[in-house]
């Protein structure tokens, strides 16, 4: 089993190879009762545009609520939803790819507030490029 996690300045990616069929993992990601078992209480439905919440126990500094909207549903390979909490908006994307022994699971959690997916794609200067460059940029800054 491989388990890699990389954090760039804005985007968090966690990838794991899991010895389970893709369809089964898709169920765990998209059936409300199953989601609750590993993530949080929710009223999720795998329908694009569906607004829902994840609910956790409130703690000081956090009300325990994550407001979400389903953005992409491509059974059984891709699922994207918004993730807004305490005024911080971000997006979570799950990508499942079959492998010889099971399924490669990739989760990307990225924050790009107030930029909708259309302009994100259309932007000449996209987040991905920015983040890719930024690592080098910050390295260089240390030397200035």
């Amino acid at each position, binding site marked *: 089993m491989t388990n890699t996690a990389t954090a760039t300045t804005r985007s968090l990616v966690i990838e794991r190879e899991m010895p389970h069929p893709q369809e089964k*993992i898709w169920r765990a990601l998209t059936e409300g009762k199953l989601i609750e078992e*590993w993530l949080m209480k929710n009223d999720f439905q795998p329908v694009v545009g569906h607004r829902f919440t994840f609910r956790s126990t409130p703690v000081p500094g956090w009300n325990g609520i994550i407001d979400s909207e389903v953005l992409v549903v491509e059974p059984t390979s891709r699922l994207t939803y918004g993730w807004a909490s305490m005024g911080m908006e971000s997006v979570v994307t799950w990508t499942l790819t079959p492998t010889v022994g099971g399924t490669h699971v990739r989760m990307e959690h990225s924050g790009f507030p107030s930029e909708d997916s259309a302009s994100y794609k259309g932007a000449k200067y996209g987040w991905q490029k920015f983040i890719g460059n930024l690592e080098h940029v910050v390295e260089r800054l240390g030397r200035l």
Partner: protein
Amino acid sequence: MVLGVKQADANPVFRALADPTRRAIFEELTRQGEQTVHALTRFAGVSQPAVSKHLTVLKRAKLVRHRREGRETHYRAQPDALAPMADWLNHYGAFWRERFDQLENLLKRMDK
């Protein structure tokens, strides 16, 4: 629970960098060092008032600093301002790794 920490601090930084032109300006400053508003206007290919507006947003997020010299205003990047963004990612990193473990536990249980 990791989710509440530092989100409020990271938010202005995310917001400031949500705009592609502002990202480009910020990166140009980190790449080239200090730049005048004129130079940044040439670089960004938008009007000078537009560039000044973007610089004001970056300044509020503490991503840039400025100084005046004669008639020119010079800007430079403050990469330390990215720290809350990095904190946010660290907190979520711990959160999601734990949830991945729980997901795998669930998948094992589903077999039974």
